[in-house]
């Protein structure tokens, strides 16, 4: 297993940058996601304008992978519609399960594409998908 394919600079940047880690005033949606076996816990908040995700942010604790993944997802979905965001979630989960491998398709995930190699670290897959599952839960309601 090659650490440099997972602990990339991009992931380190995202996990250390706090730019998406804050509370949203007047959030329209708030969803708690958690990973009992790790103790990771995030709260995702979303502000909509119509169908469009105007702002998004998170609070909570977790490892570098889960923090980076959350931050990347937030960067990605801001400005997208709910439907577009849900499609991206499916693309991301498909990438992790190795069901989607088409490069062009995966490019849509922007920064989050670097998490592709997390499947080489099976114990950490849960960390990578936490935020995405939380978003899915949020919009399912």
């Amino acid at each position, binding site marked *: 297993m090659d650490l440099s394919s*997972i602990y990339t600079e991009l992931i380190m940047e995202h996990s250390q940058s706090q730019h998406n880690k804050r509370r949203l005033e007047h959030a329209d949606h708030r969803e708690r996601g958690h990973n009992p076996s790790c*103790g990771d816990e995030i709260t995702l908040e979303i502000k909509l304008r119509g169908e469009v995700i105007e702002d998004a942010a998170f609070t909570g604790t977790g490892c570098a992978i889960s923090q980076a993944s959350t931050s990347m997802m937030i960067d990605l979905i801001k400005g997208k519609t709910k439907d577009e965001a849900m499609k991206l979630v499916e693309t991301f989960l498909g990438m992790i399960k190795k069901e989607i491998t088409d490069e062009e398709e995966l490019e849509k995930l922007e920064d989050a594409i670097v998490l592709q190699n997390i499947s080489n670290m099976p114990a950490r897959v849960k960390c990578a998908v936490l935020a995405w599952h939380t978003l899915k839960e949020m919009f399912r309601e």
Partner: protein
Amino acid sequence: MFNLDVNEIRKDFPILSLQVNGKRLVYLDNAATTHKPVAVIDAMKHYYENLNANPHRGAHYLSVAATEAYEGVREKVRKFINAASSKEIIFTRNTTESLNLLSYTYGMKYIEPGDEIVLSITNHHSNIVPWQQVAKAKGAVLKYIYVDSNGRITPEEIRNKITSKTKVVSIGHMSNVLGVIYPVKEIIEYAHSMGAIVIVDGAQSVPHIKVDVTDMDADFYAFSGHKMLGPMGIGVLYGKAELLEKMPPFLTGGDMIEYVYEQETTFAKFPFKFEAGTQNVEGAVGLGAAIDYICNIGLHNIHEHERRLTEYAIDKMKEIPYIHIYGPKSADEDKGGVISFSIDGVHPHDTASILDAYGIAIRAGHHCAQPLMRFLGAPATSRISFYLYNTTEEIDIFIDNIKNVRRWLGYGS
């Protein structure tokens, strides 16, 4: 007289020469499970090639051989923990089942509304959740003994929590997070004076220190084979005869009965009353070989070896400013070979994953002790834990790579 040749010992453990991610395995997760010497692996192979049968049930050669093998280990376990009679040794799957056996039988029968059950905040989930079920079903009160800043239990805390209302005290002999060995003998004496019985979870102690259930006067004592060089799927519950005698059975079915009628059944005497169905004879045989191996090395040697490793590791870790150790910060007499720690700025899961890339196996997370983690204010910690085959060189490798962990996470070292 300390006498343990770790290089010779390592030769007995095939898995220790495994390459992980291109590096030699450095296994520092012994509190979770331990590896098996050739003697244990061979004992199980020998069992299947020469003795395999359903014990207790048959008149034929193999069945007699399997019975003798199985009952022979019961006697070996008795001697190992100095129980009065081998009838007081019940084979289970693991510590968790041993403790559940007690919560379902002793707990459900003898705990009454308003009774108090006293646990330690350092208990493993397996010694918490079963008692929550009893408390809920019976309207009893669960109380916790808390630890001081070094992870120790003070005499005052014992006197505060164990009272004449206490029916059961269930406590871990050694914490799998802090490595502290608790003064169970003193706790038992005090609890008995208050009229309570005491259950000791010995999952972390039996593999590492000499346990004498008679001397400590434990009412029940539980442990697992897999944490003491033995196979998975076998555990032990020791219980005092007079308590086992009056307890109802737990699992029912084959082998634990006398007469079965359509509507009613009479049960066999203990220990058989508590061993339903075909038992794990292979597991017992493996456990027997593990006990032989441990006795051959000597528990005092094992404990001293681990104490030296612990001292070595703590000293090195204390030199690194961004490492924080939970629990005792020196290798005192009551400190076993388990060290939990955190690294500034690094989440324990990242620590574990990055060390793994260097072949180093440590544990990160809540260690099945969430109430303790909450008490410590840490959602997760990293943990290293030693056994007789670990070396100071392995600790050096671990320490060196802690620096790599920091580097990968973007910190200078």
